């Protein structure tokens, strides 16, 4: 049994030994699936996600090339593996939580991609969650960004996301609560948190989701820490992309 979150104040250490402003280990690779147009694999701590991109491609089905608007359609599909959580469980086909995540991701990328370059077409993102340990939405956003870059879809900038929380719960109402960065699964169960995604190195927030209650006074601190975390995430993702770029230039992968 780990200590409960109330011991944070004893040594300013979180349940897994991190400080308040530290990210978990973030590991990413791109072009992991050769068959896809773009693909990535991302680990944020024990949360593991694979993303593949198909497109931009012509819309299938009724209407053919005339269907759709003058912008590309971003479609997102998330499948959560039955073995990804602690208990093996089969998700219902139209899980509300999952469809909300899909919509959030789709809306975010509809804004950041130059979708107007691809009228009458669609870009499909397919996300597979292999393991869950908190910050799922953030991991999905980050994996999608990498896969879209791999697919070569033009975008304004990276969308980088992470979660931010607060060290004590809503009802304990402790004024000395510290903000926290990048919550793991255990922390997410107990503490209020939000998911924030920013566009590149700017402070422009493109995604902000919060489902828990928190005193409004703590929100600003949480948001600031979250945005700061997004910049760190961008740094890491950028490294991954650049490494890949260097390899391509060397021709080793072509």
């Amino acid at each position, binding site marked *: 049994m780990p200590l409960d979150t109330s*011991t944070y104040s004893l*040594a300013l250490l979180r349940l897994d*030994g991190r400080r308040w402003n530290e990210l978990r*280990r973030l590991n990413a690779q791109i072009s992991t699936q050769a068959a896809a147009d773009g693909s990535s694999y991302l680990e944020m701590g*024990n949360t593991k996600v694979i993303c593949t991109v198909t497109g931009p491609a012509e819309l299938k089905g009724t209407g053919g090339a005339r269907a759709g608007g003058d912008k590309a359609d971003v479609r997102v599909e998330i499948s959560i593996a039955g073995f990804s959580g602690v208990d093996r469980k089969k998700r219902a086909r139209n899980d509300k939580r999952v469809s909300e995540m899909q919509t959030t991701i789709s809306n975010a990328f509809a804004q950041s991609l130059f979708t107007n370059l691809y009228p009458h077409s669609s870009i499909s993102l397919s996300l597979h969650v292999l393991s869950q340990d908190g910050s799922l939405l953030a991991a999905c956003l980050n994996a999608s960004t990498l896969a879209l870059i791999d697919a070569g879809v033009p975008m304004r900038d990276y969308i980088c996301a992470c979660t931010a929380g607060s060290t004590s719960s809503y009802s304990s*109402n402790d004024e000395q609560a*510290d903000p926290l960065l990048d919550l793991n699964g255990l922390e997410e169960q107990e503490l209020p948190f939000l998911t924030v995604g920013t566009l590149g190195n700017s402070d422009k927030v493109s995604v902000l989701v919060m489902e828990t209650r928190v005193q409004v006074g703590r929100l600003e601190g949480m948001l600031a*820490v979250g945005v700061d975390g997004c910049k760190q995430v961008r740094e890491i993702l950028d490294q991954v992309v650049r490494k890949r770029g260097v390899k391509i230039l060397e021709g080793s992968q072509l």
Partner: protein
Amino acid sequence: MTSLKRSLGSDPLSSSISSKVFVRSTKSGKVQKIVRELYLRQDIPCASKLCTACLATAPRDAAGVLAPFVLSAKPAGTKAYPNGHYLLPDTNALLNALDLFESTSAFYDVIILQTVLEELRNRSLPLYNRLIGLTKSAEKRFYVFFNEFRLETYVQREQGESINDRNDRAVRRAGKWYDEHLSQAVKAAGGNKKSVPTVVMLSDDKENLKKAKRDGVAACGLKDYVSGLENGEQLLDMIAVVKEGREIRDARAQEELFAEYYSVSKMMTGVKNGTLHQGIFNVSPYNYLEGSINVPAFDKNLLVLGRESINRAVQGDVVVVEVLPKDQWKEPSTKIIEEEALNKNENPDAEDGEAVVTERERKALQEEVKKVHSKSSEGRPQPTARVVGVVKRNWRQYVGHVDESSVSQSVKESRKQQTVFLIPMDKRIPKIRVRTRQAGEIIGKRVLVTIDSWDRDSRYPVGHFVRSLGELETKGAETEALLLEYDVQYRPFPKAVLDCLPTDGHDWKVPASTDDPGWKDRRDLRGLQICSIDPIGCQDIDDALHARPLPNGNFEVGVHIADVSHFVKPNNAMDAEASIRGTTVYLVDKRIDMLPMLLGTDLCSLKPYVERYAFSAIWEITPDAEIVKSDFTKSVIKSREAFSYEQAQIRVDDASQQDELTTAMRTLLMLSKKFKQKRMDAGALSLSSPEVRVETESETSDPIDIKTKKHLDTMSLVEEFMLLANTSVAAKIYSAFPQTAMLRRHGAPPKTNFEELANQLKVKKGLELRTSSSKELADSLDTCVDPQESFFNTLVRIMATRCMMSAEYFCSGTQAYPEFRHYGLASEIYTHFTSPIRRYADLVAHRQLAAAIDYEPLDASVRSKGKLESVCKNINVRHRNAQQAGRASIEYYVGQALKGRIVEEEGFVMKVFSNGFVVFVPRFGIESLIRLRDLAETEPESTFDAEDYVLRTSGSREVEVELFEKVVVRISDVKEEGTGKRKVRLELVKTGGK
């Protein structure tokens, strides 16, 4: 195709990441495998003031604040460790002797490892909480070192290694690291080797100590360490005797005295399928060998008779029992059995040949059985049960005194360790066997002990001595004993709490300018003729009243309550302290406040002639006491006068007084009578409890006289309007917060509670007690009169009150609306609103009402159901304890007041046993037992007629005592052998008419 596999070496962080993998089973029996990351780091400071390296990397919180280093640079040294030392206890050391670590004479500079803290938390939550308290107190210098997160001290569990071994290894590793780290730190600072403090591992585990020696870690057994201290002998007693005691006994291979408890799983399945029952174990106050437990499956209590059946359960434990076969069912005992009378001369050291049930106990019980058998044809035997397991011990610290006879004379003066019996003040707790070296010193003192264990081979629980409170019968010791016994928080308010007080202190005033934020949304009621009516000498004035006629013939009546919520904001230290204290406790000579003095008796208190913030409830009431409309508002008032009940009564009765205040009081009195009548018509009960007041000398607070409380009209005046305010506020907050309103309910008592009383009244007086509703009960209580004896009615009311349930606070979301009813007041909904200075529930109601009238937003803590429930649970307990403490205090002072006096008084027989009876003396509000053997030199023969409630004696003294009879008793005082309390002693002088 790229591979997703990474080689471990490629990750720069891999050396500092580990993961915790473990398997756990859930409540429903599912097995889960949990994987957690663990980030190992090197910036966890050692927190020693000697070290500068750690200071540079020490963590800061989000505000950039650095936690100060706690371990002192020059820790105290002992003979064995002359360079000074830091202590590093392992889990066993803390489990066995946390009392030691709390003592103020030693045990400073202690390093608590995370491993130890987590283990302790899993073993005992109360100990864990106490330890956390210690780490927060600055002067004890306890530091929690998170060794599991530090790279150098992290230990991976090895194949085949038990978790305990792994934890022990982690403790040793941390000790070694500290040693090396400190010597480096001292070297870096240029100090010599002499000034490096030793890190001493404290353990009670021999294996662990051996391994520590092998690893080169300084280690020491707890006992050896303590004996090396200067005041070691006193401290030694505080080590729990568990271990040592067991070893000695193992050697002797004693036979077991008690039956073994069932395994947890056996108990659980038994309870689940209904063959076993779980409940709280209660011991009868008259017979220590008779316990009862209330279980949901039966509406009558199950009896647990005899030491073997009780099987080591102690008052308050949650136990599992098994119902005995029908031929062993019995009636509840009609005999008084007191422990000290039976087992007076036991030797605490003698273990051999000791039977669980002594011959005398057996005899006493035999008689019981015989009697039951003889009448079992028509008797009403109750189901009996035996304890087969304890789910949760409810042991606390007990106050008592050492049984002098158990201390052997020869060693009284010596320092030799010996075993003595400690007799707890609470008669329902068995004697506790305590090993001590200070037997000579603690004789005749009030002492505090805890129970450590109760093994199958011991007749009595084994405990250890915690501290001495002082001489028996000194005011200080007795008061402290009382407070400890009822768990009243009596320590002075800590600084954090006092910091929450207004900075102006005593000079705080209602701001003169009405633009001040304090005036926001406050009504200016300074012009009203407001006064307060309270008992004499009341300093914390919660409430004030006003009334004035309106042009339409109705009256405007206002109840103004101190606005405590203005000063006590939710969730600060003061609020937390108040919620723990729950209520102010009134003792005869002392008041233990819930809020600091400055607020309670000054800034909040609605003192006369000064302006104060208040929370007002204002009604328009017709002359027939119908409420036309009600209104709640925060306000500013200025009380014109603070009356005592007596003064107010004189003023109202004096027809020559025609000023505004007096006429207002007359109006209030007139309305209150009508309200009361309405309440009575609705079925409110007027109950009674024996109430006396101890008059004390103002200087020394020594008791001089005892007066029964007189009832004045002005008392019910205040009471009625407080009830009115409480009910209207309850309705208001419930409508605003249907799920989370703080309310108070009084459950209807189950019928069986009144069975005995109804039967007694029927047999003895031919009266009928109807109990189907509160209205019925109220009416039938009115008819319970004895034309010759005016007090009889009061006596019946006192006895009826004892059959009631106790009222409780609850959160509205936890009960269905019909359950909200207050049985005694016959009110549909009720709360406490009118005494926020002395009750925490009222403060919560204030906050909720303020939110309900949109004065301020509701704080999260009073909006969460779970949180409110825990608050309710606590204040219910505190409330009950406060009442009991108050009563015990009166009892003690009555004893003191009667000291050395002999009085003859009238009394009434309340209860008859086969070998004694209980007499209640209204003049002093005392209730005491007269045993047969007190009647005459040699105990007279007796016959007890249980059906008629008559006890007849013959032989050395011939009397006939029956229930409800008026008797004359001689009251003197005597120091009770058993509890060390000075108690009144009653002797029968003559029985009533016959």
